[in-house]
């Protein structure tokens, strides 16, 4: 009962916030919509008893990714300037594609798993976080994705710093 109510409330808030995120011309408001959606996702994770991932979702998405996005929006805009239209003239086309995709997937889901509920025996083990940690470094488990992720992040950092930052000397010259 309570979980169903919380789920429905979260879902509605999330979807409205997601609409704000893609429709608002004021991009800071759009980013705030994104933050609310990300938070709602974390609530859904708690409902699914994936507690570690719920907090990780908030730490990574809300705490780091959203802040990076908000930074980029605020840094590239004149304070007090008008936003102007943020939508392409071809938006009806986009609406058509997105709408078709959504309807198709939703119909497929309804047809495939109409009312599958949780099996009675399906409990999440209490030490799930420890199991995840062990699996991440287990040679027979997922050690390759784990190490590849670290290399990917290292590469991303190097690439991003290289692209965005020319070093102090180059920086001084571009601003002269």
């Amino acid at each position: 009962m309570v979980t169903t109510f919380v789920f429905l409330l979260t879902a509605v808030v999330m979807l409205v916030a997601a609409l704000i995120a893609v429709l608002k011309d004021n991009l800071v408001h759009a980013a705030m919509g994104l933050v609310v959606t990300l938070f709602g996702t974390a609530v859904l994770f708690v409902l699914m008893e994936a507690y570690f991932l719920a907090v990780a979702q908030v730490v990574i998405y809300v705490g780091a990714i959203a802040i990076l996005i908000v930074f980029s929006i605020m840094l590239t805009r004149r304070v007090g300037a008008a936003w102007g239209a943020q939508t392409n003239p071809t938006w009806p086309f986009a609406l058509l594609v997105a709408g078709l995709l959504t309807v198709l997937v939703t119909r497929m889901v309804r047809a495939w798993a109409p009312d599958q509920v949780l099996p009675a025996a399906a409990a999440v083990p209490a030490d799930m976080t420890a199991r995840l940690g062990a699996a991440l470094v287990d040679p027979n488990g997922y050690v390759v994705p784990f190490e590849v992720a670290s290399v990917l992040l290292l590469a991303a950092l190097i690439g991003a710093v290289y692209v965005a930052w020319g070093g102090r000397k180059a920086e001084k010259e571009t601003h002269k």
Partner: protein
Amino acid sequence: MIPLSWYLVVAALLFGIGVYGVLARKNAVAILIGLELMFNAVLVNVLAFWRYLQPGETAGLVFAVVIFAVAAAEVAVGLALFIAVYRKFGSSDVDDINLLKW
């Protein structure tokens, strides 16, 4: 109890909204916002399947964790490119960046 399909429908709607954002927006950061919505929809999907089909296994959780890493790398590099372009062209509109047009 909440049926599995509810989670999947919410994820599908979220994904659709994200697709619309990616296709309809002008500003590069706004496109990234749409992309993030799509990533989140995928995360909800993955975890819903984990919870309902294999709650004792770690595969679903590992999948979600790897998606976190990929999303972070994508945002970092995407925004770095955006900022480099902004510094070069003084605009954050993808329509204005048309060097490859000719």
